[in-house]
Structures are given as C-alpha cells and as structure tokens.
C-alpha cells in the first residue's frame, strides 16, 4: 500500500496552508505504519465531527462515519463495543469536542473506552467562519466577539487527565513526524487515547509564530506518573504566556470499558426461541 492510496479522489477544499493538511499527512503515515505492523487499514474506522476537521472523512480513503457536530465519541463507542476488532479514531474539532459535545469527552475518558480521539484544536470555529471556542484565549477577537471574548479558555489536557484518560498527548500540525508517532502509539494503546493537536488556522487564527517560538518536547521519562502529568498539563493554560510542551504527556494501564463488557456470542435462532418459550412458561 502507498500513501496515495489512503487519500480519496475528492477535491480538497481546505485553505492553502491549513494545518489540516499536516494532520492528514501524519494520519496517513501512521496508518501505513500500523498496516505494516498488523493493523490492516480495513480494520480502521474514522468518525468525524462537523467542521473543517470533519472533511477528513471525504479526503481519506478509509472506512468512516461522518457524524454530527460534537458527537464523534458516542458514535465511536457504539462502533467499537459492537466490534472491538476495529480500531476507531475520532477526528474532532475544538468547537465540536470541547463545546458542543464536551460531556462525551469526559465520559469517554471516565470509561477508558478503547478508542482514539484527535482534536484539531485550531482554537476557533473554522467552518462557521471565525467565532471563539473553549480554547480560544481570553479577549479573542472573533466575529461574534469584536471586542474580545469574555471567557478564559479551559485546559483540555488537564480535563481529560482528571477524567480518567490513559493516553494523553499534544501534537502540532507543523510537527508531522512527531504527530505521526503520537497517532500510531495512540491507536496501539489499549484505552482512551487523546491527542490535542495545535492546528494552524491560516484564515481565522494563525498562531504559527507564537507556537514556533514557544514549543519544546516533553521529556518522556515519567509517563506513568500522574503528578508529573498534572504539572506538565498545567504548565501552559492555553491563555497566558508559557512554554508549550509537545509529545506524549501521560500513559497508564487500566482495564478498558470493552474488556469489562466482552461481546457475547449471539444466540442461535433455536436458542433464542427456546429462551422466549422459557420466559413465557415461567409466567403461567
């Protein structure tokens, strides 16, 4: 399989220079490596939200469920609990996953669902042309907040860490090699894998220079240490001036939701009829 095979024939409609190109490339490369390592691409399903990020569904040539704004995670959960052999990747937006469907993120982490969530965090509503999101900085001037937003952002890494996620990382759309590794590891991880991807939006929120001058790579020594992860998560609050760590932040082992409710072998028609007869007979 070649990288090109994983792209569809659909015309790509992202703005030139959009960070989504970098994410798409990293995803493709990660899928190629996974395919080589024994996770065939037909076993992968992407579930996309609604937003510029969601167009990944059309631009990739893999199984997909183009869902609703904010709702990638429950769809992915249903797909995966029905067939745990599939590897399910949510392609979500920051408006999508942190505003409209935040509860599902918290519950996905709480349950330690064995799925991967990639959030294209451009810190703006791209598709609806430039409103502030839960991770836009305080005083963000968007089309609905011409005088600057009146809300401080929340910190998604801290949120998912305290909610129970067992694989947490941060990527950057201009660091594709690192992002590819993160995605591959996230898919391989057994449990809830979450990557907040700082994604450049050239049109509504171009943070390229800021990110380039603030990023550094987290050390990868104490990945299972919850307290260390807390410190890393809190170093930058998406609001105030601080170094921005990239890479894997936390990884731990915990029973997954799917392991706690294995798929039973379905009854055969005769067995089902016998069960119903028994239920009926117990009542007369």
């Amino acid at each position, binding site marked *: 399989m070649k990288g090109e095979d994983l792209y*569809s024939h*659909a015309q790509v409609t992202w703005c030139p220079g959009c960070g989504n190109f970098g994410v798409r490339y990293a995803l493709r490369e990660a899928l190629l490596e996974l395919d080589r390592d024994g996770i*065939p691409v*037909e*076993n992968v*399903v992407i*579930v996309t939200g*609604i937003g510029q990020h969601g*167009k990944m*569904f*059309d631009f990739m*040539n*893999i*199984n*997909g*469920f*183009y*869902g*609703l704004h904010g*709702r990638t995670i*429950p*769809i*992915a*959960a*249903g*797909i*995966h*609990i*029905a*067939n745990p*052999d*599939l590897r399910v990747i949510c392609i979500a937006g920051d408006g999508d996953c942190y505003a409209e469907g935040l*509860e*599902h993120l918290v*519950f996905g982490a709480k349950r330690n669902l064995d799925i991967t969530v990639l959030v294209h965090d451009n810190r703006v509503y791209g598709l609806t042309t430039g409103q502030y999101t839960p991770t836009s900085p305080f005083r963000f001037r968007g089309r609905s907040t011409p005088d600057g937003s009146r809300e401080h952002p929340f910190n998604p890494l801290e949120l998912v860490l305290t909610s129970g996620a067992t694989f947490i990382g941060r990527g950057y759309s201009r660091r594709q090699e690192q992002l590819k590794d993160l995605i591959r590891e996230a898919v391989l991880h057994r449990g809830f894998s979450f990557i907040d991807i700082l994604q450049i939006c050239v049109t509504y929120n171009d943070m390229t220079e800021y990110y380039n001058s603030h990023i550094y790579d987290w050390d990868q020594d104490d990945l299972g240490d919850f307290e260390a992860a807390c410190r890393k998560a809190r170093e930058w609050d998406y609001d105030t001036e601080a170094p921005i760590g990239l890479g894997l932040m936390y990884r731990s082992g915990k029973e997954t939701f799917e392991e706690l*409710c294995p*798929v*039973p*072998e*379905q*009854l055969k028609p005769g067995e*089902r*009829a016998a*069960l*119903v*007869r028994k*239920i*009926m*007979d*117990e*009542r*007369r």
Partner: protein
Amino acid sequence: MMESEVSVLVGGPAGAGISSAGQVVAQLLGRLGYRVHMYLDYPSRIKGGHNFAVIRGSGGQPGAIREKMDFLLALNQETVGLHRHNLAADGVIVYDAGEVKNTSGIAVAIREILAEEDAPAVMGNSAILGAFARAAGIGWNLFEDVLRLSIPKAVALNLAVARRAYDAAEEHERVPVLDRPVFPVFSGNEAIGIGLIEGELANYFSYPMSPTSNIMHFLAGLQEEAKIRVFQPESEIAVVLMALGCAYSGTRAAVGTSGGGYCLMTEAISLAGVAELPLMIVLGQRTGPSTGLATYTAQGDLYFALNGGHGEFPRLVAAPGDAEEARAWAVAGMDLSWKFQVPAILLADKVVCEGMFSLDPDKILKRRQETPSAESNSPYHRYALTGSGISPLRFPPVKGEVIRVNSHVHDTDGITTEDPELTRAMAEKRWKKERILEGEIEEMDPVNILGARESSTALLCWGSSKWACHEAGEKNGLRVVQPVVLSPFPEKGFARAMDGIDRIITVETNETGQLSRFIREFGYHPDDTILKYDGRPFTVEELDTRVKEAVS
C-alpha cells in the same frame, strides 16, 4: 361479581410493594383462566404518597379497567377513603386491621402476624395477598405456586406470613375458574423486551426515564441468558448515537425513552434518516408538556413521533395497544428497520408500558428479514442506487473496500456532495424505500377492526385506547378501527377497515385530537372527538358514558 369478570384494587403507601402485590393478583387471575389487565397508579416518589393497582380479570381480553371492585385490598386508611366508592355492592374490603379504622370486611392482623413471624414491614403485602386468596376462594397450592414465582427473596418467610393471613381470613366469594388455556401475564415493557430479543437485539442503550426504564431493567436481568448487553450512557444523545455506531458495525441495537429523551435524540434520528442506518426506538409517552406528570399517561406525541428530526425521511411508526401487539411490533420494528435501513419507532405510553396484560405466546407476526447482503457487489457502494432504493449493507472490516456512512448528502460511495442531481436522486431513493415498506406493512394487519364490525359508525383510536374502545364499541354497537401502524400509513388497510363508515368518532388521551387531525390528511373527517387529558386512561364505564353522549 359479574359473570366472568373480577376486579381487584390493592392500595397502600409508596414503598409498600403495591406494584408487586398487584402483579401477584394479576398472575393469580391469569392462572384461573382469566385474561388480565393491570393498571398501576403511582406518584413520582419512592416513599410516601398513595399507590394503587387495579387488576381486572375477564373472559374476554380486558385492556382497560372497570370502576367497580369486587375486592378492595387496603394497606392503609387512604385506600379505603379514596376508593370506598369503587366497591361493588357485593364486594368486600380486605384490610390491615392495625392501619384501617371504621370499616367492615375482612380484617387482617398484619402487625401481629409480622411480629409473630419476626418479618419486616414490607411483607405486609404478602399478608394481605394471603387473606385475599382465601377471600376469593383460591386454593393454597395455586397461591403458593404463584407467590414463589413472583417473590425473589425470603420466599419461606413470605409464605409463612401469607399462610397465617390465609388461615385467619374467611372466604367471601369464590372467583370461578374459567375453562380456558392459561396465558402468561406480562407488562408491556417486558413484552417489548421479549420482542427486541426475538428481533435479534445485541445491545440495548437507555437513559432512565419513565415509563420505559423497566425495559432496561428487564433486559439487564436477562443479559447472560439472552447473550445481550445493556448500557446506560451519559445522555439520550449518547444513547442513540451509540446505537447508530452499532448499526454501522453490523450489530442490532435498540433504545428506549420518553418524550424528553426523544427530544434529545431527534438530531440523531435525522442522521439515521439520511445515513440510512437502522435504528429501533421505543418511545413511551407520558403526560406532557415537559416533565409533565412523570408517572402518568398521555397520547400527546403522535406528531412528535412522526416528525421528530429535521428534514424529510421515511420512518416506521407503530403504536401498539397492548403487550401482545407491543411484542409483535418490537420484533417487526427490529426487522423492518434493518431491512429498510430506516428508523423504527415503537410508540407506546405509560398504560401499555407499565400496565400488565395476558398475551398469547403464539401470536406473532411473520418475520420480515432483511435481504442478504450482496457479497459480490465489488467495488462496494454503500449507497448504491437500486430498484428498491435499498442498498446492500456491508460492515467493516472488508478487505479492499471502504465503507462510509455520512450525515451530509452523499454520493453512492458515501462521499459528501452538493450536486443537485445526486441530491435529488438520493432523496428519491429514500422515498422509494418507503413505498416498498408501505407495501410490506399492508401485508401485516396494520389496522385492527374491533367492536361491532357491521356498524356504520366508527370509534377511531390508536394505542392504549384500543380495549376501552372495543368494549364501548361492543356495548353500543359501534365499529372500532385502530391503525397500529401510523407511518408509512397503511392507506389501503385503513380504507378497508373504514368501508361503509358514515360517522367517525375519535377517542384519544390528548388535548387536541392528534389522530383526528392526522387522518384528515388521508381524506377522513371525524365528526366528533372524545378526549381525555388528566393523565389517566379511560375506564370502561367512563368511555361508555362519553360514547353514549356522542352518539345520542
């Protein structure tokens, strides 16, 4: 006692086990050969407040209660105060002697019995049941058998308590045994659960809400045996989307809720419509708007069931009138939603869901299985345009194929499009499916004809008003027509059922006559509507009076 008729009311404070006492009475009457209906009336509280259950046994199928009781079982004074006027002239009150004052009938020394047996207060209901069994001339062996089956815990102690009360009471009037095959008695919720299992349910998702929570509880108890899983996600939004995820993976799922939860589901119902994903929803109506009366009934969501979700897409809506129909259409809903890749809504209400009914185990519709998927269809097109509008389903993983479902308008591969031709073609594809679905529905007895068939006046009803209408129809010589399927509307079957009708009276438990408005679309113009919107179902006598007023 009227011939082949017996009515029992059991009342007491919430927490006293009135529902289970009612179920024991229902099972007992069932074992005596009666067809049974139980209506449970309780406020939305766990402790305190007045609860009562009315159990009616009849030679015919009762699906509504009568107002006169042959036996009034009172665990508190309130029961007597509220329901004394319901006692038939030859009826009897069986009461807790320590709680109920100034009454006559059969006194049961519950406090003393419990003390002597060292039994907890909740077993008071076993005592009253024991006394009832004796008063009704029911043999101890049968009673013991039923109690054993109905009581999950501390069977011996419950039996000891019941036996003391049984021995201490006297026979009032023997409830005659009817020489008919015994039918099992189930709540509508249980019957729906059974139907879902028969419809090959693998995963059930629900967020607790009356009146459908008991489907979840019933199925949860059967998980091991039935090889199913029951999940309680964070909201109805998650509930319905998980079910759609299962459908994408090729696994049958169902969800249950009431109006408020259905509100939250509507965005996903519309998604199921455009993405052509099978989806089975049980919508149990309760009194609205909003939280309304959480534990009471209404038929206020007909239009909501028919239209919930934005945009236009075909769907199946079936409104069963009792447990037997609920089971049958739960199976059919599962099968048809898979065959046609459309949402199916089983539109019930509190009376059907939480009420109990005798059902004929063999009465089931012929299975409507999906057509086998075309394995040879390669390259695979998820939304292939076919003659029937139905595209073959395949599920990942399939080597060399990409399987896409999409909430946007899409091409045959599932890729987003804004092309006007494709937009039109995909819309027409969806409605093609509906026409074929309607054809199948017409073969499934989608319209019931009850009451006096020869009459030229029709009582037109849907859902839980079915049996009250049937009785009023028989008594007043009126035909009863009950469309079970409301979408796609079986126009042919309905026209046959309405043949020769020159006067239409609709009967519904809602404020605006929703069915009455709905059938105008098909050219039928009701002359009268009988409506009730106090959260309670019609009693037999009440509807009879209202019908007489309407026809006079």
